[in-house]
């Protein structure tokens, strides 16, 4: 039996660390974007219902499973799940709980490093006087590692490695280090968030300009909060709400199990889990909804927000908006915003290191230091390809397969294990053991029926998308290495043609009819309007790439538009998937070796 070699300092520290694990960049970026893309006010009701019937039950399951496994000296999911069932397969399903964390940490630290870099750029005034397009362009230059915005060669890589080093160093200090960061980071995050939210709430029409005369922050808030009850019957909205709850609480990752494994059996998990869960919801629903959308709507108008809402707004739009506040306020706003994102990020990425460290200590007697630095090395190895091939789509593959699919699969399986194999009777007793609050009895049936059914629905609904991803259905340039380039779809249906407006040897500009969503203030509904859109292609003369179309040509998707040497993104996407598979295989082998070691030592 392994020994418990680490512990939480205090209950508040544990809850802040758990809340910090859950509060991430998604609270400020994913939530408002999901809300906007799913009808604004229509989103919040399914979202809160999913929190009650899927989020809280999953928190109960993960906290109690973790504490249960910790009783047997297991601090990561392979052997936590193994301790709940006699079937050997569960330890290999538990591999997800380490795999997801290493893979997600590897690219998540890259985003975290952007926030560090942007704090620096906000302080030195890089964004002063930049137009909106220039601010967006700055981000594109930043992630193109060949370019440098500070003069430091490979700046993006340098910041990434620095960020990973900070994470690894803190992890090497054990749970106390994580707790300390959470105790400093969470209050600061809330403080920064409140300051920016007050600004979002009070901006009103003061940000309107000649370019965006209709800009009004209230429009953004109206759109977010006007309930549209007819959307409640739309399964897509429910699916998006369930997905958001899932990602915001960091369930299905294995980090909650790991943190809870350091609790004693008489320690409460019921109150702790709902407290951490609601703290996350406070940050998301209260602060997350009052920053990006109202501020962007206040300067750029609601229609701009509806058309452009996305993760990139944090880096491509917000610095420009802060500049409108002028001077020192702009600097403070930049520091607050990117500082807030940094704290949200680091409290999550630190949690991702703990399952690997816990596993290697439990099974191979590795010290915290060795575990932390090996995690850093593993994350660096997995993460560098995402830094180098960010624009080629490798990053998105990690985010999709490790940061999305993996979580849903693992959460579904762990719920089945908890409710039907470990048994709901034992499970319910485990949740209530040492509980400081009385959990309503209905949750027993929710955990047994509603939560697995919802998760199963989310999982099954995601299968067509998974197949499309593997088949690279989003592109007409499927060959890895080729001598021709074909036009992609111009708009979502892929049925419309485009006209060639401009051509040079290495450049093509196309125009085509597209549709966009705009908000009708009279009916308070979104309507679709047509407009002429453009698309540009740039080709590389060093690879002999040349346009093969002429001005005035009308072309459809899949038409050959250039010749030369091409390495298509499908190659990098495949590489990303193979790297993730290799990581999963590697961790499975480590788990198998741990199993053999246990058998030899008579510990199994």
């Amino acid at each position, binding site marked *: 039996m392994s020994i418990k070699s680490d*512990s*939480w*300092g*205090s*209950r*508040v*520290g*544990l*809850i802040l660390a758990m809340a910090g694990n859950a509060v991430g960049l998604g609270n400020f970026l994913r939530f408002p974007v999901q809300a906007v893309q799913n009808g604004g*006010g229509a989103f*919040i009701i399914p979202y*809160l219902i999913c929190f009650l019937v899927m989020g809280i039950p999953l928190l109960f399951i993960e906290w109690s499973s973790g504490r249960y496994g910790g009783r047997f000296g297991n601090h990561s999911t392979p052997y936590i799940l193994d301790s709940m069932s006699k079937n050997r397969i569960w330890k290999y399903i538990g591999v997800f709980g380490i795999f997801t964390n290493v893979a997600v940490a590897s690219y998540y630290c890259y985003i975290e490093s952007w926030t560090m870099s942007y704090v620096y750029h906000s302080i030195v005034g890089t964004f002063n006087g930049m137009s909106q397009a220039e601010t967006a362009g700055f981000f594109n230059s930043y992630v193109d590692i060949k370019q440098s915005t500070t003069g430091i060669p490979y700046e993006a890589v340098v910041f990434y490695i620095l960020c990973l080093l900070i994470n690894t160093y803190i992890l090497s200090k054990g749970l106390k280090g994580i707790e300390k960061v959470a105790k400093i980071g969470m209050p600061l995050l809330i403080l920064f968030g409140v300051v920016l939210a007050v600004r979002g709430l009070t901006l009103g029409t003061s940000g309107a300009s000649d370019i965006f005369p209709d800009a009004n922050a*209230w429009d953004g*808030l*109206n759109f*977010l*909060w*006007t*309930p549209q009850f007819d959307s409640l019957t739309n399964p897509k909205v429910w699916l998006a709400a369930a997905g958001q709850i899932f990602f915001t609480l960091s369930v299905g990752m294995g980090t909650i199990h790991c943190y809870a494994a*350091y*609790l*004693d059996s*008489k*320690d409460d998990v019921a*109150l*702790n889990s*709902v*407290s951490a869960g*609601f*703290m996350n*919801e*406070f940050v998301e*629903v*209260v602060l997350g*909804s009052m920053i990006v959308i109202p501020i962007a709507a206040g300067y750029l108008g609601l229609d701009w927000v509806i058309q452009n809402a996305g993760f990139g707004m944090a880096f491509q739009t917000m610095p420009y908006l802060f500049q409108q506040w002028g001077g020192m306020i702009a600097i403070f706003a930049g520091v607050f915003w990117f500082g807030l994102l940094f704290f949200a990020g680091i409290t999550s990425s630190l949690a991702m290191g703990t399952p690997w460290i816990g596993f290697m200590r439990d099974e191979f007697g590795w010290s915290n230091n060795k575990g932390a630095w090996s995690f850093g090395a593993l994350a660096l190895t997995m993460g560098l390809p995402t830094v180098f091939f960010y624009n080629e789509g490798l990053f998105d593959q990690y985010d999709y397969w490790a940061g999305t699919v993996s979580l849903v699969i693992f959460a579904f399986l762990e719920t089945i294990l908890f409710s039907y194999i470990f048994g709901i009777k034992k499970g319910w007793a485990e949740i209530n053991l*040492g509980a*400081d*609050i009385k959990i309503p009895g209905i949750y027993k049936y929710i955990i047994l029926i509603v939560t697995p059914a919802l998760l199963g629905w989310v999982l099954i609904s995601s299968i067509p998308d998974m197949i499309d991803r593997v088949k690279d259905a989003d592109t007409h340039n499927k060959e890895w290495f080729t001598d021709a380039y074909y036009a992609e779809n111009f708009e979502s249906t892929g049925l419309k043609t485009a006209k060639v407006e401009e051509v040079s040897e290495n450049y093509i500009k196309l125009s085509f009819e597209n549709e966009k969503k705009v908000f009708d203030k009279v009916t*308070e509904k979104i309507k679709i309007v047509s407009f002429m859109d453009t698309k540009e292609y740039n080709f590389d003369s060093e690879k002999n790439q040349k346009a093969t179309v002429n001005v005035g040509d009308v072309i459809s998707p899949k038409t050959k538009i250039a010749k030369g040497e091409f390495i298509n993104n499908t190659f990098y996407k495949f590489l990303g998937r193979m790297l993730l598979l290799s990581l999963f295989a590697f961790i499975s082998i480590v788990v198998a070796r741990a199993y053999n070691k246990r058998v030899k030592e008579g510990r199994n």
Partner: protein
Amino acid sequence: MNTTALITMVLAQGIVTCFAVYFFYKVLTIKPKQEPDSFSENDNDELVHKKD
């Protein structure tokens, strides 16, 4: 802001804030369990009691 949106926002945010504050307040005020527990910062409490 229109009235419906304002009511929805205040209700949703109010409910979430109330629950978050209520549960965290409970965590802060609930009587700690008898030592030894799993938290190390209060490990000296038992010794203090014994001295008393």
